[in-house]
């Protein structure tokens, strides 16, 4: 892509999220979300492949629907209460509509159906931006409006997302779809604790960003989009294979890796709030996700596939690839659990 166009698009992405972060008026927040949507559309369709264009169209339609719902809900709230301020969502219809729209924006179940299809049609870097950066602005809005939303609805969204994310990812052989279902499940974990400890939501978001970035960047380096390709990565870069396995287990929430930290703190908070059943269901749903992460680890590291990949791309060493982001995110995805007390102090 033309570097000037790329600069404009990436700056617009940054601008949109920053606008939403900085806003307390619903219209400005909506504008930030729309700038984000419009800026990422050319990035998604840059390869002009029919599937990329299809993914872009699906993404645009869902995001535009969600943005229209946000506008409608905020206008309704302004009409009834006279307030455009985000902290004054006192109308229940407006607040329910807002959370539904924001759930559609970030792909929470049951508004998640677009997510695997869209991620499958994109290349890995754009998929990474979609899974990480595009979630920041809607989550900021959810955190700000959480106290006005029905707690049962938040709990239902969180539980459903975790269960659907685990169930849906079980039989996927396409890695981008697996990461999409992983994203849905992690969003569920973020939402379940929102009403009790929003700082844990932010912590879960940060750790999710590190782990997902590490996963996407590893797949980009190994040019792997299917489980079968992942099975032969060990012969190309053995060290990366080992660290990728650990990153996947971190996504699954196993100690002593970073991914254990948010899950542990969230379960602890749920137990403190006298919600043992919710905590048990969340832990059991996490097992479903862990199963498909383990399956990927098994395919990649615990077996030696007799097949060799026929594609030339993995053989070609990409000398111009920047390795610093991958190294950084992998380290953070694996090694932050021992510093949990410091992180908890920083966040709370």
């Amino acid at each position, binding site marked *: 892509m033309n570097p000037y166009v790329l600069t404009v698009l990436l700056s617009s992405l940054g601008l949109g999220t920053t606008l939403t972060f900085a806003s307390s008026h619903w219209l400005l927040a909506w504008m930030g979300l729309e700038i984000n949507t419009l800026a990422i559309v050319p990035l998604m369709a840059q390869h*002009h*492949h*029919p*599937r990329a*264009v*299809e993914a872009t*169209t*699906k993404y645009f339609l869902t995001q535009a629907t969600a943005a229209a719902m946000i506008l409608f809900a905020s206008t309704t709230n302004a009409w009834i209460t006279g307030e455009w301020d985000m902290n004054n969502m006192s109308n229940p219809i407006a607040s329910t509509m807002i959370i539904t729209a924001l759930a559609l924006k970030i792909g929470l179940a049951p508004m998640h159906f677009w997510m695997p*299809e869209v991620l*499958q049609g994109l290349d890995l870097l754009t998929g990474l931006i979609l899974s990480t950066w595009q979630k920041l602005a809607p989550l900021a809005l959810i955190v700000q409006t959480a106290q006005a939303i029905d707690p049962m609805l938040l709990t239902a969204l969180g539980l459903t997302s975790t269960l659907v994310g685990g*169930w849906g990812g*079980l*039989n*996927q*052989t*396409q890695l981008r779809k697996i990461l999409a279902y992983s994203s849905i499940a992690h969003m569920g974990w973020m939402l379940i604790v929102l009403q009790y400890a929003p700082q844990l939501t932010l912590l879960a978001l940060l750790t999710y960003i590190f782990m997902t970035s590490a996963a996407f960047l590893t797949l980009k380096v190994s040019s792997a989009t*299917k*489980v*079968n390709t992942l*099975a032969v990565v060990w012969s190309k870069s053995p060290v990366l294979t080992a660290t990728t396995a650990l990153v996947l287990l971190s996504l699954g929430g196993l100690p002593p890796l970073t991914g254990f930290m948010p899950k542990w703190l969230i379960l602890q908070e749920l137990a403190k709030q006298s919600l043992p059943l919710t905590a048990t269901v969340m832990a059991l749903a996490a097992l479903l996700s862990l199963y498909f992460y383990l*399956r990927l680890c*098994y*395919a990649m590291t615990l*077996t030696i*596939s*007799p*097949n*060799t990949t*026929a*594609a*030339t*791309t993995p053989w070609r060493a990409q000398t111009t690839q920047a390795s610093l982001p991958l190294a950084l995110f992998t380290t953070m995805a694996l090694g932050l659990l021992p510093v949990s007390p410091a992180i908890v102090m920083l966040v709370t």
Partner: protein
Amino acid sequence: MAVSRKALKALSGVYGVTHRQPLFFPSKLGCSAILSTRSVFERDYRRPGQPPDTRWPWQKIHFDFSKGVEGIKKHIGLLKDEFVQRWTGPEGRPLLEHMLEQTRVQWEFRGPESLDQWVVSSDQEIGGHSVAYTKLGKNNTTCFLYGSLCSTPPRDGETRYSGYCTLRSKQPLASFDRKKTYDWSSFNTLHMRIRGDGRPWMVNVSAETFFSHQRDDIYSYFLYTRGGPYWQDVKIPFSKFFLSSRGRIQDNQHVLWLDKVKSIGFTLGDKADGPFQLEIDFIGLCNDLAHTEEFAYELYKRNPEV
């Protein structure tokens, strides 16, 4: 001068909205006797030459309780299988089997029910005179596609070329008639065993197209048959398939993504009138490890800056 088909459709649409001329009420307007029996909401394609279907929608329904019960049993059984298969692995098989798979026979014609998965059609749909039929070959082990091509265009004032016939597979359906797609991403070559009569056919693979502007996208390649009593093993890598839309080869070429394949088809349109035959033993897929090409067609910059 014949009225163009589009004008006829527009007129019939207008009349169809205002009144539907069924069996009960004779048409009052002379010229609308033919046009007014078509409704804009008709979804079934009407082949030229066939009389229009003037029945009311409720007359088209054949309500049968036992058919309903069988349908419910079948679909609930399929849904239950889908849930249970999840515990085994992708597509109901263990992951190891998926990872080790290097060949797969997708279609083999071993009984009359195998022909139900295929649709044969010819240019009779647009008023041409070609005919095409399928039957099972010797010992019910092959699919025998035969017929006769006729490239005389239909006399409707707008069609200039004719003379084709095609055999296309139906899209697989999940429970409750939801459309499913094949996942051929573990493979890179199409392997068929066929016996033709020397005519050049085209193999068309259609990927899943969600939006209407992609509905006519088809990836095609040529299949040259050698006439004769000997079977022919044809291996076509998927990297060779080129993209065409409504029969027009596109300038922007893209590789066929194999994770969602809808159907495969064979088309004959070689402008040679007369009988044709094609016998297919099986259609399968294989992973040719020696084939490293990702896409056979280079894209060059059109309108380069000078």
